[in-house]
């Protein structure tokens, strides 16, 4: 291994502590760092505080495994399969999870403040919402927001406190050996989340020589020094999509949702999480499944996916 590359086992061991504040890249059912998250469950990490905006199965599988103490999020859902994501919904209804709600823009601006080295970011959103009434939830953040009058215009502005997670995990299509990150398709808030975090691990479909990735510096979204470790993880976003390479996996989402609804999530974990990398691919459908999900290089997705 060259440069910053380490194994997924080492990466989770080294960077995730019980109680860590952590943020994942991706958006609902797209480009979440799922292979890293499965390893977190295998290593039994717990009491995590997850900062997110549009979470889905990334947060949900961790909640189901009992690894999450608190979530500061805007949305947790698996789109057409189920909303909210089933473990999250259950845990919330049972009062087993501390939750602090922001809007998507609000959550993004909190990461932006973190990335900019500012203690807060002003906004004109969330005004009038109960998210600015629930006040200070118990837990890590002492103050959820602050309302003020603009000294220039007199208008009402809300200040949102910076989010600076201990760790960000981003799944990218490509990363250079030195850490330069290239993301294809929507970046979501991944670049901002990474810049806000104290440490950053990138899992990637491909690791390239640094010189090669630097042939197109306009396409990179994180300079190498923002990244502390990289992990080679082909198909690492499955069952979520990875633009340009593979689509989301409707079959697997159905299995996931059914397992939870039928109270057999432990069996799901046994079959799909406590399992070797190679065996995982066989269990999700092997080479035929990978071919079905494979993206058309021009369109960026699998045009004939049965969904």
């Amino acid at each position: 291994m060259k440069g910053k590359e380490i194994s997924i086992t080492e990466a989770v061991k080294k960077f995730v502590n019980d109680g860590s504040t952590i943020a994942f890249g991706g958006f609902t059912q797209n480009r979440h760092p799922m292979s890293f998250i499965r390893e977190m469950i295998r290593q039994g990490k717990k009491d995590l505080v997850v900062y997110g905006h549009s979470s889905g199965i990334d947060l949900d599988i961790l909640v189901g495994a009992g690894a999450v103490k608190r979530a500061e999020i805007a949305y947790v859902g698996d789109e057409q399969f189920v909303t909210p994501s089933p473990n999250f919904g259950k845990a919330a209804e049972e009062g087993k999870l501390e939750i602090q709600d922001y809007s998507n823009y609000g959550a993004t601006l909190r990461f932006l403040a973190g990335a900019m080295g500012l203690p807060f970011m002003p906004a004109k959103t969330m005004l009038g919402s109960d998210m600015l009434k629930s006040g200070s939830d118990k837990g890590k953040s002492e103050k959820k927001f602050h309302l003020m009058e603009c000294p220039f215009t007199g208008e009402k502005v809300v200040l949102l406190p910076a989010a600076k997670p201990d760790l960000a995990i981003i799944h990218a299509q490509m990363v250079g050996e030195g850490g330069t990150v290239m993301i294809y398709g929507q970046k979501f808030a991944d670049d901002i989340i990474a810049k806000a975090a104290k440490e950053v691990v990138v899992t990637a479909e491909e690791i390239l020589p640094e010189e090669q990735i630097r042939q197109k510096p306009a396409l990179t979204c994180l300079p190498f020094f923002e990244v502390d470790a990289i992990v080679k993880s082909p198909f690492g976003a499955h069952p979520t999509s990875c633009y340009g390479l593979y689509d989301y996996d409707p079959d697997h989402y159905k299995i996931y949702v059914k397992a939870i609804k039928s109270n057999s999530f432990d069996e799901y974990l046994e079959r799909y999480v406590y399992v070797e990398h190679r065996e995982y691919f066989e269990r999700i459908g092997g080479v035929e499944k990978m071919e079905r999900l494979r993206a058309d290089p021009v369109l960026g997705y699998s045009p004939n996916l049965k969904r």
Partner: protein
Amino acid sequence: MPEEYTLKELMVVRASKEIKDGEKVFIGTGLPMIAGMLAKYTHAPNCVIIFEAGTVDSKLLDLPASVGDPRCVYGASTCTGLFDIFSMLQDGKIDIGFLGGGQVDKYGNLNSTAIGEYRCPEVRFPGSGGACDMACLSKRVVIIMKHELRRFPAEVDYLTSPGWMDGPGGREKAGLVRGGPTTVITDLGVMKFDPSSKEMYLDSYYPGVSIEKIRENTGFDIDCSRAGETEKPHIEEIALLRNKIAPKGSLR
């Protein structure tokens, strides 16, 4: 017996009419997305569909499964992320936002967070996502809902996305600079908001739906005196939906 149109198709067609040509539309997953695509294929070829996950005016050869779907990228004018898109919204550049939710009250305030006590709710919804942002910051909002009594309460359990708040002047008092809901499209009919009282009234009911049924399914007094029957979808619109836009059976 081949139906003339399904209820969902009627809703989608009606929703698409809310979009004027050239408008910039902030759209979520599901029915709104189909409505947006239909508008683009019919009366509003120059409307601009914007997805919060990062894309503007994509070609949409296939219906995306989420606003962050790889299907949203092809042919887009730009492909970026949440920050850029929401900042355009906050800067007043988006004309219309489509929203759904778990509950709506007579002022168009929406709840997509939780029913019951926030900390230990009876029902937990997915949360705001971009809904509150659209409700606060787009020039106007169209709501798409299932019309049920428990979904149309006098007051929402949790105000996720501000409508007209507590009536005239409510948004201004909260510090909101523009916007507010104009239309609620349900599976029973179409509601609008009175310009002076900001209260929801029935604008039209679907063919075969009685005003009585709408009253029964609405948890607050609703003025039905201005209502007529909703216009039926045209055959061309239904054909477009079935053959071009919505995958088989998705609007059944």
